[in-house]
């Protein structure tokens, strides 16, 4: 028994030591309450098993499980807080750091023993360091480079859209189709109507998404578009204009068209583009106008692209001129 007294703790105590008394004024009652709470918890878990068995809803599962856990939890906490020795107890902090002797012994090993090797074998150490660096580099190259293709360098590089940020699949003559592949006819949209279109064969493609807007009811002999951006008088047709739907801020689809104010609004970060002025950004974080797609109508009434975009679509990046 004498072993018990030679621990790290304080002097032995008898059971009537006030520190060992529970905090509860009426421990018997508290014990009953804690037991009741845990029993409710047990009922909860049994309930969960039943609820699962009969395949009731998630709400019932959550209710039974929650009641189970809370009941058990409250009971255990009541036990710990009100029925266990109330204390308070104290623990001394010892000096956190090592003694000066221990430190100097350790430091001597590092600087002395180790330092000696370093000064003696400078060349070896240098080669080892370079070798270690080379190993890291060698392993990093496949770890990074193998992950994906290199982005195509510039607009001259007409790579496919999956490896180039500059190109899209729009070409002169591309049919405008809906995401379902239905070709778009010139009388498909009412004034104020909008439609998301793709070049035929690339339905649903991210960089190719274009928003087609009918701004006015104009015939084949009218000017193509009532208010055109400078230098782009021929880019619309019969009251239609088409713009890249990729926001120039962070690439969200610019999906909100407000007919009254002739604005396109990006729902992500509220950039606003002025449709009447070549979709220049009027407000918000977007830095550049939405690129415009020149469009035309063929003799059968089918809407077609009259060329590609004159610049990269979507958000900015380093290689963009």
């Amino acid at each position: 028994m004498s072993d018990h007294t030679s621990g790290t703790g304080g002097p032995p105590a008898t059971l009537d030591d006030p520190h060992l008394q529970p905090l509860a004024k009426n421990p018997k009652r508290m014990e009953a309450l804690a037991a009741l709470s845990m029993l409710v918890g047990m009922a909860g878990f049994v309930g969960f098993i039943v609820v699962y068995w009969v395949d009731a809803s998630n709400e019932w599962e959550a209710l039974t499980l929650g009641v189970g856990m809370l009941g058990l939890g409250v009971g255990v906490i009541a036990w710990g807080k009100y029925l266990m020795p109330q204390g308070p107890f104290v623990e001394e902090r010892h000096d956190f750091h090592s003694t000066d002797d221990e430190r100097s012994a350790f430091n001597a090993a590092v600087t002395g023993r180790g330092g000696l090797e370093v000064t003696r074998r400078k060349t070896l150490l240098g080669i080892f360091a370079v070798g270690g660096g080379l190993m890291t580099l060698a392993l990093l190259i496949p770890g990074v480079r193998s992950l994906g293709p290199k982005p195509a360098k510039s607009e001259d590089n007409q790579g496919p859209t999956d490896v180039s940020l500059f190109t899209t699949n729009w070409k002169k003559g591309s049919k405008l189709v809906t995401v379902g592949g239905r070709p778009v006819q010139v009388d498909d949209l009412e004034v104020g109507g909008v439609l998301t279109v793709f070049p035929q064969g690339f339905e649903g493609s991210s960089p190719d998404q274009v928003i087609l807007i009918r701004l006015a009811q104009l015939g084949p002999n009218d000017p193509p578009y009532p208010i055109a951006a400078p230098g782009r008088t021929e880019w619309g047709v019969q009251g239609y204009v088409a713009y890249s739907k990729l926001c120039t801020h962070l690439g969200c689809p610019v999906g909100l068209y407000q007919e009254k104010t002739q604005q396109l609004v990006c729902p992500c970060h509220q950039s606003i583009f002025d449709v009447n002025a070549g979709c220049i950004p009027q407000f918000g974080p977007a830095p550049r106008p939405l690129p415009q797609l020149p469009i035309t109508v063929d003799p059968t009434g089918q809407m077609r692209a009259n060329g590609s975009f004159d610049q990269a679509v979507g958000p900015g990046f380093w290689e963009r001129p």
Partner: protein
Amino acid sequence: MIDKSLNWLDDRLGFAKGGRSFLDKIFPDHWSFMLGEIALYSFVVLLGTGVFLSFFYVPSAHEIVYHGSYVPLRGQHVSEAYGSTVGLSFDVRSGLLMRQAHHWAADIFLGAIAVHMARVFFTGAFRKPREFNWIVGVLMLILGILNGFLGYSLPDDLVSGTGIRIAYSITESVPVVGSYLAFFLFGGNFPGSGVIIPRFFIIHVLIIPAILVGLLAAHLGLLVKQKHTQFAGRGKTEKNVVGSPMFPTFIAKTTGFLFMSTGVIFLLGGFAQINAIWQFGQYEPYQISYAVQPDWYMGWLDGAARIMPSWEWVGWGHTIPLEVFLPAAVFPGLIFAILMAWPFIESVHTKDHEYHNLLDRPRDRPKRTAAGAAMLTLLFGVFFASSTDVMANFFQLPLMDVLWFFRFFVPLAPFVAYFLTYKICNEMREAEGIGKRKHALVVERSAEGEYTTTESPVRPGDEHVELDAIPVPTFIDTSDPELATAAGVRRVIR
């Protein structure tokens, strides 16, 4: 019996030597020390529910036709990731509960970390020797935010897909190497070659959790080694810790708290719908939804991106999208750098290189408290800026006005917050009798009309006087049979 088993174990593990002092380890009793426990226990729920989800989720962009029990989606072309997430919600029993509990646990995990961190900051618990643990904590916060984003991106629904698109564009915005980073990460131009979901998945379920578990072990290991901080008070000094012992009191309380935390998370998971991806639909890059906000811990970055002016830099044949790079990469980088460096910034500023085990009252360190208030004002400012559209609708204000308000509020309000907090702290410190226990005063008027003021006697039930702390007794004498069986009958000692 127990003695025997313990001896058998000690023969093989030798834990009794150090184990006793571990059982006697003292935990200070203060409610604010529970905040970190909430984070710990929601992490436990995250691991458990996450393992469950991983048995059913398929990390693949491969297109399938949905045939599950959710009628509106039947016959639609969806990705395996989306289809399996809807499937585990509706066709796996308890699946929806587990998924929603997982999502709630993530939100609570990061909330608890943030509040815990504020507690540590405002009470100066990060000071020497605990700087490393502060840094470990900040690292866990960063990884937690990142993993939260990755996790809610996995279902491949319309909302999360938009988030992935934004992440692509942010990666792309890094000067010089941005498009390379984005191409390597996604396997090409957005949406990439179908690799992003499986890559996010393995980072979300393996890489970051493994690092988090390691950091958590370091966090708790350092906590044990360096011992707890405590607030000043009766018998509490820089040289001791006063409170409850690890065994049995703290173990009981904390186990109960584990059950309560998980209970609340599961109740939320069953009753509070979260991330109803079947309503959003499969992600398509040309579709978008209105008034969509990310999970709360991403809101500050979204808000920063919203209020940033459109300052794109173009020159010498190159573009630097500063309107993206500054708010989405530089801003969070700076915030986290300041957080990590704070213990050192402060000790250089105060020239205080002593050990600190007693916590500060926030008002006693007006500059630190004011700096913290300024930081919180900044972060809450950008956080609320992430709902400019919702606010404009709600308050019937023009969107532009709301945005302009935040463009001024976010950079200016922190200065106001600093100034006000600094003033309030100083006024509180100078107030008479602050921090002292107040006694009721009784004012009496005598028959002559003379007023006298006397301190009231102690109210009944208020006479509790705390005992002086003693070391945990090495040995409790249970030989008196009367005392042993009557254990728990309260002695009237005070």
